[in-house]
């Protein structure tokens, strides 16, 4: 195989490149959301308004229900809208068009329509933005059949999965972790896409499987480095998409190591980790040498104060401590 040329770019630049390339490739793709036309507002959308004009990079009023429903309509009528939700917290004003309409229309109408819609939803804490601007809500959306949910944790996956999402003929919730926007990493040159529905081993190891979702895949990699210093060889697996969830890909690692810890930034109760833990015990119960451990946000809102926020949110240190506890 010829060697693929790699470049080092940030997670936000990777998203930006995917948007540029897909809008270039397909004139039916357009971007819509609050402030998207202003380059300075976000590195993820910078330059798009200048390049494609404000018909295809369209500012909206603060009208989440209205413009999300409109995106569903435009998708049914043959376009491929990409919504910029600014923060996933704001999506609560637009649950109906996503959960009741976009995800169900194809089924409800007996296959008469498809809804090729991507909702980009930046999310997460660590920036002292408080209870309504720090949430991680992807768990809500895996309860909605008909909706793909993608949770990339590094620049290469952000680019490759966003390009695949835009080409997908189904509605996709594309979660972006604000804490990762400045994270740099290697991204293959050219038309780089990643498959929807495949987990990826981000670090190989033999002693324990750390499953990290989004921002916590990054923390799991840091935790694995710290654990290596303590003589523990951790494997880090990133599901990358949580609908569909690649249970076999995750279970394969657990069968190898016998221990499993799941880390996510969403709340623990009813979280993505709960779903993954249940699925892994269905698939690989015999391989488990101990109960599956979970590290997640505590079941309280995310407070503003730096010290209090750190108590509530998961972290590399909490993952290391939970891993050590699991292995003891």
């Amino acid at each position: 195989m010829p060697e693929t040329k790699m470049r080092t770019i940030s997670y936000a630049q990777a998203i930006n490149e995917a948007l540029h390339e897909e809008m270039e490739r397909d004139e039916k793709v357009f971007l819509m959301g609050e402030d998207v036309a202003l380059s300075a507002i976000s590195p993820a959308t910078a330059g798009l308004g200048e390049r494609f004009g404000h018909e295809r990079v369209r500012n909206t009023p603060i009208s989440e229900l209205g413009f999300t429903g409109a995106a569903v309509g435009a998708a049914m009528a043959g376009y491929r809208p990409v919504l910029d939700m600014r923060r996933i917290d704001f999506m609560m004003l637009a649950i109906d068009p996503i959960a009741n309409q976009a995800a169900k229309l194809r089924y409800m109408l007996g296959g008469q329509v498809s809804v090729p819609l991507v909702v980009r939803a930046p999310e997460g804490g660590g920036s002292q933005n408080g209870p309504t601007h720090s949430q991680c809500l992807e768990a809500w959306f895996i309860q909605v059949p008909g909706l793909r949910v993608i949770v990339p944790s590094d620049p290469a996956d952000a680019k490759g999965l966003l390009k695949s999402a835009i080409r997908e003929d189904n509605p996709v919730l594309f979660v972006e972790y604000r804490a990762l926007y400045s994270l740099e990493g290697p991204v293959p040159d050219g038309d780089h896409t990643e498959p929807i529905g495949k987990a990826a081993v981000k670090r190989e190891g033999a002693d324990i499987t750390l499953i990290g979702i989004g921002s916590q895949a990054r923390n799991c990699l840091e935790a694995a480095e710290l654990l290596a210093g303590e003589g523990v060889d951790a494997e880090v697996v990133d599901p990358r998409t949580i609908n569909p969830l690649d249970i076999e890909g995750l279970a394969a690692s657990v069968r190898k190591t016998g221990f499993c810890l799941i880390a996510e930034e969403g709340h623990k109760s009813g979280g993505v980790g709960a779903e993954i833990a249940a699925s892994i015990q269905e698939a690989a119960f015999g391989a488990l040498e101990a109960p599956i451990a979970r590290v997640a946000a505590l079941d309280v809102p995310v407070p503003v104060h730096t010290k209090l926020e750190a108590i509530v949110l998961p972290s590399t240190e909490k993952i290391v401590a939970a891993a050590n506890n699991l292995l003891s």
Partner: protein
Amino acid sequence: MARATSRLTRKRMHEMYRAMLRIRRFEETADDFYMAGKVVGGVHVSIGQEACSAGVCAALREDDAVLTTHRGHGHSIAKGTRLPEMLAELMGKVTGLCRSKGGSMHIADVSKGHYGAHSIVGANMPMAAGIGLAYQLEGKGQVAVVFFGDGASNNGAFHEAMNLCAIWKLPVVFFCENNQYAVSVPAEYSTSVDDISVRSKGYDAPGLTVDGMDVAAVYEASQEAVAHARRGLGPSLIEAKTYRFFGHSRGDPHYGMYRTKEEWEGWKERDPLIVCEKMLKMTAKQKKAHAEAVEAEIKEAIEFAENSPEPEESVALEDIFA
């Protein structure tokens, strides 16, 4: 309230009468079948409101779109939705428009420009704005019409969709069938204005209230609003004052629970079919011709639906992802 002028051709009036009768007979059949236990799920009939469906859709092109509501049989039929496949859907047959997975509240026939009945009240309006946006980008002069009721005009989705259509000048007609009640709650209680059409002023769009029992009045108002949209001038809001002769669903009677007999009888006198017959001075022979033609269509639909198979179990797991 705007009244019809007389520029309409008799031919067009007869076509609209035929459409109204088709709706009336389909819904009577659906109600009979429901009572006989032949319908899967519920039905919400629009009997009494047929002039709205027929008048609006007569002003549309085949490549225009409609989006409707849980009470959407009439709009569907007026837009050209196939009756056999529609009745099959009500009866839970796999040949139904939605392969028996949507039922009465989600009838759609996209091949006819019918983008669906949407059972979450208000949800169809932002989607109509989006279809209007697609039409504007395509530049072929297509228009989307969204039907909703007095109740939905109090929903945020109405206001957000009106604003989007107004700022982007989208080719969308908002058609409010004010049938006076949102299930049991009267519009005069739930709605801040007497005429819902005045709400268009908040969006700097034309608004007009028409007699929803007069198909000619509905048609003429619709033609104007559709032409406005096609010229790229943006949305309009039409309110048609109308009445459903049946209860909200089979759970409530025609009157006696939240509507009086006197009120009901007053509206019945203005049955849109009778109003139209009088306007046309329709002869017994003409009436018979319309009735026979419609009965043949209904018979064909019944035969198709009754002879259609139920879905295989595998259908439950199909059509989730494209």
